[in-house]
Structures are given as structure tokens and as C-alpha cells.
């Protein structure tokens, strides 16, 4: 085969493959992703039980209760007071506690939002600049 023709074919195959990969990637990004919401956005959106959301916010003070492997707590806006109740079954990460920022995938069930198993992550406080104790 003519070398220049061969090169053109290779280029077309390469570009088509790249285009295919890009299309599939974009399609997956829309179909397999979850919407990220804050508590106030969840409250105003009136979500349906079929949809799941990635909820971000802080664990509200005084709201965490544990009964066996079931945790209930409220997540509030990072800079606000609007909050939603969460029920999460299973072990929570070590850094999880009240006041800490978390990300959890939830689905509405009645008045509660139920956390998807193993979806709860807590922002690692290791690198957060804490206030030095002033004495």
C-alpha cells in the first residue's frame, strides 16, 4: 500500500478511536454521575426517592446518635443553618464527628435521607490548620 495512504488510514483510525473514547467518557459522566447538593439546595429542590444525590456539608452539633450499626445525624450547610436528617448504616470513617465536613451519597426515604452504604467520606482533618491553643 502507498505509505502516505497508510499514514492517512492510521490517522483516521487514531482520531476516530479518540473521538469514540471522548464521546463514551462524556456520556458516562452524565449518566453515571450524581448531582452534588448542599442541605439548603436539597430542601428547596424537593427531591424524589428515585434519585440519589451527593450531599456535602457539616455534621450538625448535637445531632449524632448511634444505635448499633445505625447512625442518625443532621448535615447542615457549610456556612449556614439549613440542615437535613440522615440515617446511615455501617461503620463511619475514623475522623467522622460533629462539626466535621462530610460527603455522603443519599436518597430520600420519607422525611429522612438514607445514606448509601460505604459512601460516607469525611474530610481528613490532618491538613486543616487548627487554631493553636492560646494559654
Amino acid at each position, binding site marked *: 500500500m502507498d505509505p502516505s495512504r497508510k499514514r492517512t488510514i492510521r490517522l483516521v483510525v487514531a482520531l476516530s478511536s479518540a473521538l469514540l473514547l471522548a464521546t463514551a467518557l462524556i456520556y458516562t*459522566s452524565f449518566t453515571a454521575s450524581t448531582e452534588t447538593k448542599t442541605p439548603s439546595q436539597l430542601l428547596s429542590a424537593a427531591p424524589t426517592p428515585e434519585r440519589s444525590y451527593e450531599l456535602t456539608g457539616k455534621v450538625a452539633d448535637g445531632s449524632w446518635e448511634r444505635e448499633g450499626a445505625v447512625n442518625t445525624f443532621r448535615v447542615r450547610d457549610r456556612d449556614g443553618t439549613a440542615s437535613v436528617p440522615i440515617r446511615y448504616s455501617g461503620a463511619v470513617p475514623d475522623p467522622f464527628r460533629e462539626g466535621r465536613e462530610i460527603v455522603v451519597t443519599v436518597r430520600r426515604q420519607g422525611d429522612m435521607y438514607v445514606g448509601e452504604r460505604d459512601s460516607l467520606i469525611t474530610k481528613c482533618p490532618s491538613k486543616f490548620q487548627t487554631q493553636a491553643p492560646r494559654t
Partner: protein
Amino acid sequence: MLVAGRFLLIVALVVALYGVGASLYGARRGNRGLVDSGRRAVYAMAVSLVAAFALLEAAFLRSDFSSELVATHSSTTTPTFYRVTAIWSSQAGSLLLWAMLLSVWSSLVLFLSRKRLREIAPYATAVLCGFAVFFLGLLVFLASPFEGLNPVPAEGTGLNPLLRHPSMMIHPPMLYSGYTLFAIPFAFAVGALITKRLNADWIRSTRPFTLAAWGFLGVGVMLGARWSYTELGWGGYWAWDPVENASLMPWLTGTAFLHSVMIQEKRGMLKIWNVSLVLATGILAILGTFLVRSGILQSIHAFGASTLGTPFLVLIGVLIAGSAALVIWRADDLRSESRLDSVFSRESVFLLNNLVLVAMCTVIFWFTFWPLISEALGDERSVGPPTFNSWIGPLAILLVLLTGLGPALAWRRATAANLRRSLTIPVVAGAITAVALVATGIGDAKAGLLFVFAAFSVAVIVQEYVRGVTARRAMAHEAVPVAMVSLVRRNRRRYGGYLVHLGIIVLFVGIAASSAFQQATDVQLRTGQSTRIGDYAVTYAKATSRVVAASNGRLERIDLGAVLQLRKDGRLVDTIATKRSYFPSADPSLGPVSSFFEGEATSEVGLRAGGLRDVWTVVSPSLEELRPLITKGDAVFAGPGAKISAQQREEFLAATLKGLTDSYTRDPPAATFRLIVSPLVTWIWLGAIVVLVGGLIAIWPGPRSSQRMVSAGYAARLARELGRA
């Protein structure tokens, strides 16, 4: 100390600026003296930064709380080892580590190449000094590690308990060494593009540093995974977190570069691709640093509330635009010297392997940044680990196949005879594995396919070793072990590389098995109760507790734990201890007793690691029964206890906590356990060690390269003598 530290940083910044100017001006004017002084500026910068780092280390060791960094990341109860390493748990301390490592590695490469690459080196020096100027600018103007505190606190906050793990403390220096070492091939690539010295010389000279960068980054990634598995209490080793992904991306493109560069050396092909890969790897290394510091993406590891995002973004923008401009500018000089002869050739497989690695990096990049991209489009969205796995899994399977296929094919064109000779045994090995897997009824097709390809690729590697040893024995009549050692010694790059391939295959098999066949359960048990997981019966045998004091006698933490008995077929096979450690909170509004239960808590994993499977356990003790006692204890300290001396208070607190923990072990409440049985997790760590050993063999200078250096030195001397004559 603080003033001296700030002074050293300013000196380093000034010297780095001088290094940029002197190197560029010297190169343009052909002034050798100025170029040499630019190089020496890098040495001076390294001395300044090592001294600044040592000063800060000394402050951590002395628990000098007049330093804000020490007060917020260490305490008198922090064990000495962790006090030494706490420096890089902070934003400013880790930036100082970055700058110091960059200056040390830059000094090393510039010293070793001082008599070579004379045209390229000054521009590389300017680029390396440019990186240093950026980081030193951040350290001097935005995130100084030498900030003071007034008044000086009596005690520090302490190192975050989650970071009190040996692998976590080695992990950041490894990652940063990888990132900073990747700046070296980046800088030399820029120099090669500017000076049009685009043959493989710069690649050969910087190869040890590229390999070292790849090795350090790989070790760093694996140590992070190990820390996650044994310390974070969730039972996994990889969560596709943005910061984890940031460290993986340059490793993937670096791996692609290490392969494709062989084609440039052998055939003068893929020059644009190689230079683009090395530039992309350097930029991705900076991107990794940016992701950790900007807080731009939701990550469990990101530094909080940082102001460093914008400068990093500007730097990345400049690097991308500059790199693209350079490659386009030199596109004509980067044309390949030869063409691909056949699809059935080693070059083709290497190219395919490159495409797979770059596709992996692209997928990870896209999904990692999807929250930002989607936010710009309207609604912020994110993808979870299953989506990452569904894309990366098939690409990893293909990569394992190519790992075996590459070495089996000849350069330029593989003939039918070559294919038959090289592939028969590996194909048979793969087929036998497939039959065995079908016979045992493997339930996961993707994992099964990976095992089949793994068997094929391992067979190729073994075959290569056997052929090499047989040839050596025929030539030198050596015994098998001697022939094996000679074989590897004489071609370290090739056989070290095969060992790296073997390690990667073992690692991938471990990942596939532990992901596909893991069994996990969360269960609440009282002492004496049992549950089943996999083939095991797990019994909560007894509760444990301990009040732990630091070396200076001050209370450090409380441990509440459990002893679990593991039975298989009714037979006791192991006893596992797991615990949760509670560290006191620095919140002054809390009572002294409750502060121990409201601070950080970490899980200490109970692990039975085995060659075939791991049994992984953590306990979450219930504190509800202890609450009334905790409240009572706080009340005592607030009442009559408020009048006692600090010494008496510490002793009384120790006695109270001892009473509390004893009551926990006497009458333990139900505890929640997470139990996981994962097959072949040990293979992941084992594979990583094999990769490291292979990498070390490949990087070690062989007898030929020492000879080459001697010859080069001799040739240079001879040329000088001839010049004089």
C-alpha cells in the same frame, strides 16, 4: 530561630532568582563563567533550604511552641519519631519539604551533568530555578513555616492521630521526591527544545532521575494505599479520591514515557510523543501539588481553606502554554527518523501500551475534574468509585496482556516463526489458567480475564529469563544461579524491567482478586457472641482497655478494644486484637474527662494477613454506657477538683480514666465490628516490593555505563590535550 529561618528562605529565593538570570544570560551570551555560577546558585539554594529545614526540625524536636507550625502540629506528648516527621503534615512545612527536595535533586543532576549537555543544562538550570522561585515565593510571601505565636502556649495541639503511622510519615517525602524528580526531565526537555538538541542524549542523561521519580512516586502511592488499608478503618486501599488520583496520573504518564523512550533510542521515532509525555508528566506533578493545596475539589486529603490555589493555577497555565508553544515551535525538528514497519512488532505493542496508559490517565483526569467541569456547565455532579472501576478495569486488563506481549515480539517486524517460538508456551499457560478458572466456577468475568492474561504474561517473563540463562550457560558454562546473576548484571535495564513487569502483574492480580471477591459485614456483638464471614466464625472473646501515657508522663490516649477469636471448621486458627484509640481534644470548653472522648479517634486494625487471604477487623466501642461516668468525672473536676494543683490534677485524671476503662472491660457493652475477608491483598504489597527491586536493578549503573563514563572522560581529556598541541 524564626528570624534565621525567614532569612534563609529569603536567601534561597534571591539565589534562585539569580540562578534563573545568570543561566539564561550566560547561555545567550555564551558566557561559561556565568552559566557555571548559575549552576552553583542551585547548590547554594540547596544549602540554604537544608539549613532552614534543619532549623524547623530542631524546633519540632525541642517542642518550641513559639513557632506556630510546631504548636499546631506537635505537642510534648507526640512521640519523638512523629515529632520529626510532623513537619510535613502542615501546608507550609510540606511546601518547604517540596522546595528542599527540588533543590537537592536539582543540585545532584546539575553536578553529575556539569561536563555534559553543555548547551541544554543552562536552560534546564533556569527552569529548575524557576520552579524554586515559585515555591520559595509561596514560602516567603504566602505560607511561611516560620510564623511566631505570642503568647507562647504551654502545650501544642499535637500531630493528628491518623498520621501516627510509620508508612504515612514516609509517604509524603516519597511522593514529593517523585514530583520534584519529574521536574528534572521536564527541565531538560525544555532545554533540549530551546537548543534544538533533540537527539536521545538528554534522555539518556536524565534517565536515572526519571526512573528514580517513577520509583519514588510509585512507592509513595503504595505507602499511601497501605496506610489507608491499615489505619483509616474502612478496609480499602484506594478510593479514587482526587488527591490519590493526582499522584497516580504523573506515574501513569511517566510509565508510558519510560517505555516509548526506548523506541526513540532504538529507532529515532516518537520524538513529539516523548517530549509531550515528559512535559505532561512534569505538569501533572505540579497539578498534584495544586490539587492538595487549592481545596478546589472535594477530597478527604486536601488542605483546608488555602489561598494557594490561584498562584498554582497561574503556574500550571504558564507551563501548559509554554510547553505547547515549544513543541509546536520545534515540530519540524521532532520528526521521526524512521517509520513503523509492522503492526506485529515490539514498537507497535509499546505504542499501544502508551495509548492505554495515557487513556487511563485521561479517564482519571476527566472523572476527577468532572465536578468542576459540570459545575461550569450548570449543575455540579460527581462520579463515584464504581464508574472509575468500570473504565480503569478493562484498560488494566489490556495493559496486563500488553505487558506480556511486548517482550515476546521482536523489534521492527515479528515473523510467524518468531511469534510461534515466543508465544506458544505463554498461550498454553493462559489457556490452562482459563480452563482451571472455568472448572472452579469463577464468578467474575473481568477478574478471570485478568488472571488469564496474567498467566500469559508471567510465562513470557519466565521464558525470557530461561532463554537468557540458557544462552549464558552455553557461552560461559556457568551454573544456573551464576548465569542468572551475570545475565541481570549485564543487562540490568532489560531484566530489571522484566522484574518490574512481574511485580505489576502480581499487584494487578491482588487488586482484581481483592476487589472482586471481597466479603464484608458490619455487625454488633456482645462478648461471647459469634458471627460468620466467609469460611470463618468470629467470636468477640473479650474487651480490652488501656490508659496510655507519653514518655514525659502526660496522658496521651485511651484505648478501648476487643480480642476476637477466629475459627475455621471449628478449629481456632488465630486470635486478633483490634482497638480504637481516643486522643484528647484541645477544646477548652470540654471537661478533662470528656475531652478524651470528644477529640480525634483512630481505629487500630486487627489484621490476619495471609498469602491467600486477609481477615481485617475494626471495632467501634459503644460509649453510651460510659457517658454517665464521664459526666460525673467532669463534674468532680469542675467542683472540688478545680482547687488542686496541676500535678495532682494529672494524677487524679489518670486514676479517673483508669476507673472508667476498668469499668468498660468489667462489663463491656455491645460493640460494632466491621469484618472483611479479602483474598490476595498481600499480593498487592508483595507486587509493589518486586516492582521496587526491579526498578532498583534497572536504575543501578551497569558496568557498561561506568565504562562509557570513563571513556567519555578519557575522550574529553584527549581532546583537550590535542587542542593544546
